[in-house]
């Protein structure tokens, strides 16, 4: 028996505008009966201390899309997905606003969970985006430091 797997082209976008997570998820499942599981991840701009005016997301145009596309391709090789969407915003993002979206669709839930989890871990450590905090008090913004826990999360997928 040969497995019949249709090639899946991931949707990858880097954009200034906000995104509609529900619409992106619908595109991966509408009119199909082979999708059993849809996992959506939305990353939002936090501000627990109430002192943030906005995050400014700088990116490396060209490479940001290329790197996200490489990571999406890697996920498609590792898991039998029926669809995969990655959207990452750049520019100024206010507290409570959406920053990043990953949607993974598959016949079975484990593949969808693992692929979206994997993508977020690698996106954090490999996609060329950098966050700067602009505070309400008008002080000059400071760059957000990379967290070692993000590298540890990404390393989980290599140790497997």
């Amino acid at each position, binding site marked *: 028996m040969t497995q019949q797997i249709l090639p899946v082209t991931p949707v990858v976008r880097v954009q200034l505008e906000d995104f509609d997570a529900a619409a992106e998820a619908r595109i991966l499942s509408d009119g199909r009966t082979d999708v059993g599981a849809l996992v959506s991840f939305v990353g939002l701009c936090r501000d627990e201390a109430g002192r943030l005016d906005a995050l400014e*997301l700088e990116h490396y145009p060209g490479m940001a899309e*290329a790197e996200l596309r490489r990571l999406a391709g890697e996920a498609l090789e590792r898991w039998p997905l029926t669809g995969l969407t990655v959207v990452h915003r750049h520019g100024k993002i206010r507290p409570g606003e959406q920053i990043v979206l990953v949607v993974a669709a598959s016949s079975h839930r484990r593949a969808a969970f693992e692929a979206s989890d994997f993508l977020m871990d690698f996106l954090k450590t490999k996609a060329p985006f950098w966050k700067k905090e602009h505070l309400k008090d008008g002080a000059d913004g400071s760059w957000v430091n990379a967290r070692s826990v993000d590298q540890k999360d990404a390393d989980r997928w290599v140790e497997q």
Partner: protein
Amino acid sequence: MQIKYFASIRERVGRNDETRELPRSITTVADLLDHLSAEDESYAIAFADRETLRAALDQEHVELDAPLGAAREIALFPPMTGG
């Protein structure tokens, strides 16, 4: 070769990008970092901590000891913090 800088490295270097003809003696990313650092203190400061310096050649991540090869574009930046 076009050199691009991002985030804190861009701010420390004081420019977004520049284009340079490199001497033939410069064959790796690290060679280029040393070359620029010797030229001006702003580079020396920006590239001082090699542990937290990242590089990409033609938009693909590479280690600092990677050969420049035929790459047309190099980018230098700190660890990424997207997502």
